[in-house]
Structure formats: C-alpha cells, structure tokens
C-alpha cells in the first residue's frame, strides 16, 4: 500500500522530552514499542485517538506532531 503523505516529529519530540523511550511513549498511550517505531518510520498511520494521545503526552497541538506533506502529485 502506498505510504500516505503524513510525516511526524515524534522522534524529535521524544528527544526533547528527555530521551523518552519508544516503550515509555507506548505505555503512556496504550500501544506497543513496535507500534511507536512503526509510526515514527511512517509504516503505520495511527488512529485519530492515538494521534491525539501522542500529542497530549508532549503537550503539543496535533499539527505540531503530525503534518501533511504536500508534493507535486497530491
């Protein structure tokens, strides 16, 4: 399946949050470490609820965590 044009800054936000681990973030929003890794790598698009939960963990609005990357074909 084609990768959707959605990027995220979770890796950066984890770093800024004191090197929060993927497992820690996963525990806080109720998913596995592997799912956080998949989201960061753009291999999985989280549900809207999970996306909001991630944003709340970092105290950021959704659009500062996830963004739509426009390109010439979209």
């Amino acid at each position, binding site marked *: 399946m*084609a*990768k959707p044009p959605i990027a995220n800054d979770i890796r950066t936000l984890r770093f800024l949050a004191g090197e929060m681990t993927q497992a820690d973030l*996963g525990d806080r929003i109720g*998913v*596995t470490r*592997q*799912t956080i890794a*998949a989201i960061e790598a753009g*291999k999985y698009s*989280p549900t809207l609820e999970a996306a909001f939960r991630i944003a709340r963990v970092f105290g950021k609005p959704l659009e500062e965590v996830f963004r739509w990357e426009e390109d010439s074909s979209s």
Partner: protein
Amino acid sequence: MAFREKLAWVTLGSMLIAYSIYFWLLATRFDLSRPDGPPTVAMLALFGMVTVAQVIVIAIATSILAIRAQKDANAKADERDRAIARRATGVAYVVLMVGMIVVGVVMPFSEPRWKIANAALLALVLAEAIRYVLVIVSYRRGWHG
C-alpha cells in the same frame, strides 16, 4: 520484530511444513486409484498425526518466544495489531468462501468424498496461509488502514 509477527512466522512455517507433508504423503503413500479412495481411517490417522505435531511445535515455539520476551507476550493487542489482523482476516475470509463454494457446491456433483474432504482441508490451509502472509507483510512493509 513485534511479538505477533514472530507468532505469525512460527504458525505459518509450521503449518506449511505440516500440511505439505500431509498432502505429499497422501499423494505418494496411498492408493488413490481405488474406487472408494484411500482408507478413511488411515487418512484420518495421518491428518491427526500431522495436526498434533503442528500443535506441539507451535506450543513449544510460542513458549520459547514468550519466555524470551515476557513483556511483549503479556501485552494486549494494540490498535495496529488489531488493524492488521482485521485486514488479513478479511482477505482470508474471501479465499475461504471461494474454497467452500467449490468444495460444497461444485465438487459434490463430480468428486468422491475423500477428495471433497481434502479439498476442504486445502482451502482451510490456503486461507490460513494467506492470512499469516498478510499479517507478516503488513508488519514488515507497513499498514495504513
């Protein structure tokens, strides 16, 4: 690698090996030219042995995986696990339906019972194999449901 992906590898591998052996033995060790097909008891015994062996292999492999990654093994399926399982099950259901239509609607008019029974088993194995392949592919290449 996600715990459920490892389980899918184990189950797929053991299932393909087990039922390849079953169908190979059925084709080579039984007299399929008999009018009433191979002896039912012998065929059932072979099926039973293969199935029990597969279950034992899966149980041992699952136990080893669970011991090596206890936290992952105890974790409930999350939204990605469930999305991947839904997708794979949906596709496998279509494969199973086609197989059951062939087995239950088409074959009874032309084929003996032993062939119908084994065709049903083959349809089940194919549907399950496709389900596990899709699970593995979805974990490895990503899934954007």
